[in-house]
């Protein structure tokens, strides 16, 4: 109905207080988002496509050389065994820890909920090194104790970390934290009331677990299993450091070995890693299908308290045990080795010395590597935080982004999560060391690689922070007369400060721990801590490796401290 009103008076004078400038057509709004999608595609998709295109160009040759790779079948089989094994270990242990956490006495709950994610701060290189000092067959500290107690005989064993079992357990231990995070978050979201309700209906604890708890955990279990399986398929650090004596190779280490030869046979590397690429893409598609109708980034508004559950101190045992295995023991081994003049397998505090530390410091290689790492970290943060902020805004339902643009941004924003890191590293090496970039040996190359790797991790915390604050705050700013930039700077950023801090913390952890891509994209003249550490593992002394591992951890902690300040003091809690 078109209605005109009688009451309308003609105004005596119209005062146009509004400034009708800045006209734009509605279709133009989509263009800058399309530009963002293009930038993302250039960063993430292009290296992968370019690499596989190179392989297709040289298909017969690549396949021929692939067939000549020694023990090719064995490599793929070992990759599968390690992936399945370590995923199983991680899922069982992570779920178990999450369940234990629900039984922890209330006053210890907060502290205990943080402990299982502390291992995320520990670089996996450091854990692996630590455990190799503990369990190497001859000189391992634990092995010597065990032999001393009459378990095992001779001068070797009884345990061997350089074995398939060793690799699976080690990788599984590292991945456990991820499973714990997902499952525990899902348990916490639903609260214990549902279990209490089942008990009130007369269900026994066992029946409650089967009929209520387990089905409730299922989405988180499926999701975390998929993620962890992908990470396990792309496992690089553990097989590289522990697989050499028994000649255990996985796809990632094989790709790395291709990248270490000169000239690099890119077509062969692309062909080797193709199965992982296919699996990664399949997982993305399945995940999108499974999650299509779910609201993916629901923020937890009210945490239900854990009511009506029996608690027990025994629940602390597995949680503390995990911390001991994943952090305390390897860290202790690293510290003692770094203080020993040489590595003999015996801890002798009377010989402890700081010589290793001072010699590492006086070595210009080390100082350069630390400076390069910190500089690369800083540049990565400067690039990735604004970029991922834009991606988060584009992914918000309330932002008017054309669907054909939002979907690519969404997929590109998470693709780096699903690709094996070794494949990404290899693709970066191919793309950026060739013309027109020729960045090999520069910090820029390292930064581009790190930015690409960390985008998904920087997007998620910002996206959930943006979702949680809702649209009104920025709308209120816009009706107050502030433009997009002013609104972002004065209203949005301060409000999502903790999300920004978490993003910065995650980026820091990934960059400081980065080993795989670093090995491939750094040159002997421009190394980061990770690549220097590997060189020392191959050529140097054990105490130096221990010192570098601890330095890696120190860089992580400094970065966390900085993001703590950014976030206003509650980063670790929110990760």
């Amino acid at each position, binding site marked *: 109905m078109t209605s005109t009103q009688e*009451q309308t008076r003609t105004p005596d004078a119209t*005062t146009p*207080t*509004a400034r009708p400038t800045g006209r734009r057509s*509605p279709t133009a709004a989509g263009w800058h988002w399309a530009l963002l999608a293009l930038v993302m595609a250039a960063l993430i998709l292009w290296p992968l496509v370019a690499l596989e295109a190179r392989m297709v160009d040289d298909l017969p040759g690549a396949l021929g050389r692939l067939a000549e790779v020694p023990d090719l079948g064995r490599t793929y089989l070992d990759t599968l065994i390690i992936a399945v094994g370590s995923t199983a270990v991680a899922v069982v242990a992570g779920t178990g820890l999450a369940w234990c956490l629900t039984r922890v006495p209330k006053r210890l709950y907060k502290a205990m909920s943080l402990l299982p994610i502390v291992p995320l701060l520990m670089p996996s290189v450091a854990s692996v090194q630590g455990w190799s000092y503990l369990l190497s067959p001859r000189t391992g500290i634990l092995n010597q104790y065990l032999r001393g107690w009459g378990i095992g005989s001779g001068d070797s064993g009884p345990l061997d970390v350089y074995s398939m079992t060793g690799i699976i357990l080690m990788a599984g231990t590292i991945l456990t934290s991820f499973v714990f995070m997902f499952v525990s978050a899902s348990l916490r979201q639903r609260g214990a009331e549902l279990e209490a309700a089942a008990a009130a209906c007369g269900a026994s604890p066992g029946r409650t677990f089967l009929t209520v708890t387990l089905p409730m955990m299922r989405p988180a279990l499926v999701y975390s299993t998929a993620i962890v399986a992908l990470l396990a398929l792309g496992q690089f650090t553990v097989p590289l450091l522990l697989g050499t004596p028994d000649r255990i190779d996985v796809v990632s280490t094989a790709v790395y070995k291709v990248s270490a030869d000169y000239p690099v046979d890119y077509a062969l590397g692309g062909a080797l890693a193709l199965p992982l690429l296919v699996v990664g893409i399949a997982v993305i598609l399945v995940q999108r299908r499974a999650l299509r109708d779910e609201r993916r980034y629901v923020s937890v508004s009210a945490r239900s308290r854990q009511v009506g559950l029996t608690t027990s101190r025994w629940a602390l045992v597995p949680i503390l045990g995990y911390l001991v295995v994943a952090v305390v023991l390897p860290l202790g081994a690293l510290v003692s080795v770094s203080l020993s003049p040489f590595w003999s397998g015996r801890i002798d505090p009377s010989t402890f010395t700081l010589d290793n530390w001072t010699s590492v410091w006086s070595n210009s290689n080390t100082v350069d590597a630390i400076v390069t790492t910190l500089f690369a970290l800083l540049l990565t943060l400067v690039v990735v935080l604004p970029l991922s902020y834009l991606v988060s805004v584009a992914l918000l339902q309330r932002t008017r982004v054309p669907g054909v643009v939002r979907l690519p941004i969404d997929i590109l924003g998470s693709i780096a999560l699903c690709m094996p890191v070794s494949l990404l590293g290899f693709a970066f090496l191919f793309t950026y060391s060739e013309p027109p970039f020729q960045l090999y040996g520069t910090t820029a190359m390292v930064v581009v690689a790190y930015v690409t790797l960390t985008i998904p991790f920087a997007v998620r915390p910002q996206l959930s922070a943006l979702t949680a604050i809702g649209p*009104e705050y920025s709308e209120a700013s816009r009706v*107050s*007369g*502030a433009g997009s930039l002013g609104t972002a700077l004065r209203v949005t950023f301060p409000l999502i400060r903790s999300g920004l801090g978490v993003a910065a913390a995650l980026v820091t952890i990934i960059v400081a721990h980065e080993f795989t891509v670093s090995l491939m994209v750094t040159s002997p003249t421009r190394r980061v801590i990770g690549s220097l550490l590997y060189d020392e593992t191959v050529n140097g002394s054990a105490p130096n490796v221990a010192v570098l591992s601890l330095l890696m951890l120190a860089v992580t902690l400094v970065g966390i401290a900085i993001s703590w300040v950014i976030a206003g003091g509650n980063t670790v809690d929110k990760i």
Partner: protein
Amino acid sequence: MSEVRIDRLAKLFDSGGVRAVDDLSLTLAEGQLVVLLGPSGCGKTTLLRCVAGLETPNSGTIEIGGALMFGRGGRTQVPTHRRGIGMVFQNYALWPHMTVEQNVAYPLRVRGTARHERSRQAREALALVECEALADRVPSAISGGQQQRVALARALVARPGLMLFDEPLSNLDYRLRAQLRQQLRELHRTLGFTGLYVTHDQTEAMQLGTVVAVLKDGKVEQLAEPASLFSRPASAYVARFLGIGNRLELARDPGGLWAVGGGDVRIGLPAAGDLPGDRFDLYLRSTDVSLAVPGSGPDDADVGRVPGVVTDVVYSGESSEWVVQVGEARIVAAARTGVWPFGSGDRVEAVFRHSTALLYESGEQGRLVESYGVRPSLVS
């Protein structure tokens, strides 16, 4: 202050599946406070957000103060921050990281007002809403009513050409709402801003609106001053939305009388001869119905009476409601507690005056029968 013209505006959601605003036209004269009234989902908030530039309409034009804000088939779109508006949100939307004064001064800050001057004006605006004392507090440390007052000050501070209100009082409790309503009335009277006010609360609409627009399915169902809106709702939909709940279905009887609710009760309607149909709905305000012992009470041409049985008396403090079963229909009569001595089971007559009753064409969409109900003496 400025005039606002909305012309043939349409906003579609879900790829055209939902017409939230449907070819709607509305004009706000300078200084008018137009209230958009309607149930949830009628399109009132969408309309407001289109005017604010927070939603992009599909077609139509919006002019504020003579300047085109949206139009020419979407080729002209002035972004929200250049529309010169002030807006009060339902959940206040005060930025938690700024103090009250910083919140209020923000519109001046983005307009480049000097620090000293904006502090002075912010405090002035806070004084208008009686919140000067809160200037240095943060929003989370003040009460809901205070937060909404501060939000009001923030919207007013830059003297915008148009004030928009998106259900600003619905998060407050009953008492605060009444208090703030009064304050808003006074502010509008003093400052004389042009405003568009969205609410689903009819009391708010009646008290605040210079003009009230009742919305239904994205269209204006009725546009009128509060008094004429309430005395003569243009359709059964508007009457029901305004809380006029007593409905008697009438069907023409061969004898010239009207059967009530398909039962045995018959009543006469003045001017019945002219009525353009055989079925109508008679709506009565509960305060316009009184109860009497059958056979007693006033009796003249204007009086209508239907017999019934009291089924319940709902005590609500000062006033009470008597529920009377009339054949198939129920009539509620409201009055001061204790006015009538009737209780459950008593036979009574519900008495009303045709001059205050409303007659609509039968059905949910029925229009008002204009010829009925207004006593000749009342028609000027």
